[in-house]
């Protein structure tokens, strides 16, 4: 065998020590180059969106072309409406996500470290999760009125579980070696959580948080569907009721953008928090 694979690192996985050896290029130029595939794909999707409905003779109230939707998004008056309502929805989602995150991580640690507690409580949490939020949201309205609380509760219910499961799974996958290191130093349970299980589970917690973030948005919308004065869920229903499909798509785009921004924020925080890890540090 005298030939070898033509390119090194062709597995696509990071090669140890393969950090760039040349002088760092201007970082904005690199960032732009990194995002080219994404932008190209975006352009393709947008072009398809503009022309495919026309070519397939899909009517505008079924699937409006991009231009019709952009029209909504550029009319100052509707834009103003979207913005103020988007803020309401985002606010609900963020508060609920925050509560869900804290609850999920704490419960994850508790259930991950106390097997008896896990056996006692986890089945009920699963059962609670299996309840359709659309069906329980009305109950929240009855109990907590028409304000922020019921929407935030729906968000918490949805956002909590992925964080919990991922934290628990992280905690339970800890190396025996590392636990022994802490045990031999007579670490308190809190120290074990704070200095071992938390950094160890962080990649999992971030994965859970990414899932939780999109669910938080869905939760806020579902909560608003049941009863609300403002929020994108209200706008969405309004536009569905008036058969304004282009408007519905405009709201969907705004929701996507909010979801993306939340995801971006999470990934930025993660990049800092997990900078010690090669694979995470190299990418965004």
């Amino acid at each position, binding site marked *: 065998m005298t030939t070898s694979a033509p390119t090194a690192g062709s597995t696509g996985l990071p090669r140890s020590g393969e950090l760039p050896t040349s002088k760092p290029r201007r970082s904005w130029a690199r960032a732009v180059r990194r995002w080219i595939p994404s932008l190209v794909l975006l352009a393709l999707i947008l072009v398809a969106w503009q022309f495919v409905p026309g070519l397939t003779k899909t*009517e*505008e*109230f*079924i699937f409006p072309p991009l231009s019709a939707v952009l029209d909504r998004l550029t009319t100052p008056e509707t834009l103003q409406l979207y913005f103020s309502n988007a803020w309401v929805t985002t606010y609900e989602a963020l508060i609920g996500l925050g509560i869900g995150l804290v609850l999920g991580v704490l419960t994850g640690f508790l259930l991950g470290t106390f097997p008896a507690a896990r056996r006692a409580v986890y089945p009920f949490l699963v059962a609670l999760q299996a309840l359709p939020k659309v069906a329980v949201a*009305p*109950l929240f*309205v*009855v109990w907590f*009125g*028409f304000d922020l609380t019921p929407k935030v509760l729906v968000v918490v219910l949805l956002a909590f579980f992925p964080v919990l499961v991922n934290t628990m799974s992280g905690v339970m996958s800890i190396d025996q070696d590392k636990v022994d290191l802490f045990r031999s130093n007579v670490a308190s349970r809190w120290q074990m959580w704070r200095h071992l299980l938390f950094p160890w589970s962080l990649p999992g917690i971030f994965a859970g948080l990414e899932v939780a973030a999109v669910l938080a948005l869905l939760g806020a919308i579902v909560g608003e569907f*049941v*009863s*609300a*004065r403002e929020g994108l869920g*209200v706008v969405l*229903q*309004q536009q*569905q*009721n*008036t*058969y*304004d*499909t282009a408007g519905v798509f405009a709201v969907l785009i705004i929701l996507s953008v909010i979801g993306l921004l939340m995801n971006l924020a999470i990934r930025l925080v993660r990049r800092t928090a997990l900078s010690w890890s090669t694979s995470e540090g190299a990418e965004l």
Partner: protein
Amino acid sequence: GPDGGPAGADGKGGTITFGISTPTMTANFVALAVGKEEGFFADEGLKVDDVFLKDSGTVLQAMAGGKVDIGTPTPDVAFAAMDQGQDVKLIYNWARRPVAAFSVLDTSPITTVRDLAGRTIGVQSISAGTTTLAKASLTQAGVDVNRVKFVEVGLGAPALDALQRGRVDTVVQYDAQSSAQISAGAKLRLISPEGVEDLFATTFVSSSAFLTSNSAAVKGFGRAWSKASVWALANPEAAIRIMWKLYPASKTGDGDKAMQNALAIFKARMDSAVNVDDVTAKKIWGQYDESAVQHWLDFAHQNGITKSSLKTSDVYTNADVPDYNNFDAAAIQKAAAEAK
């Protein structure tokens, strides 16, 4: 329709996909079950493929996508769709009165729409069709809408709870909801909206393309529906039992209670909207009143539901009404009375 529609090119026979704008079978649509069970659709050579959809908008979109042949939206959404350029035609005037009303506790001092001045009104959402109707009715009764407070209470239990706890003075809701609440034990009184009595509600629509290519099927469907309605009116309990048989999920709760519930819903709709005097008197099923259509169009335009001004002649047709009514009502009533 182009796909999923009747097969027979001669228009006789085939399958009609019937899109219903409530997510589940209720006693409102008991005629559908009766028509199937008693063979009224089969008599026309039709097979009805019924689909229950979330709301009127979904029905109309499904129709635009060729997935539904005949649908049952509320007129506001149908007009909005026409306004957007969709090919929709009203073909069978079913609920001829508004089917929404103000519900108040029976202990409430409110007895007329006028009494609602300065009160708090619970609505499903600000953009719901019922809200628009309520505003129109308030305006007709001389109440300043700006002096009334609207609160979004959602549908169902939260709405009733808000009413009972006094968070709102009244709730605007559909007949099916109020009668279900009454059946569930709530002590409610209904106040019909005034000045808007001719704003008909849930109505049957199709596309003019479908009407042209499947004229016979549409006529047959309308006739079968009329026959089934007559049958159901003649023997509601038997009709409801047929519904339970064909749609087992529609029977909720046990025996007597379930029958009471279903009858209440059926009667509310039939008494207030479908079986109104002109139908029984003149025995004309499905006919639209030109002036009512005009009223609706004006109302829709004023409330921003439509942007362009639609012409009455473009939005509805009474062309098939004679066919809808071309049957022996007495024979059907007799057959119904004999059914168990």
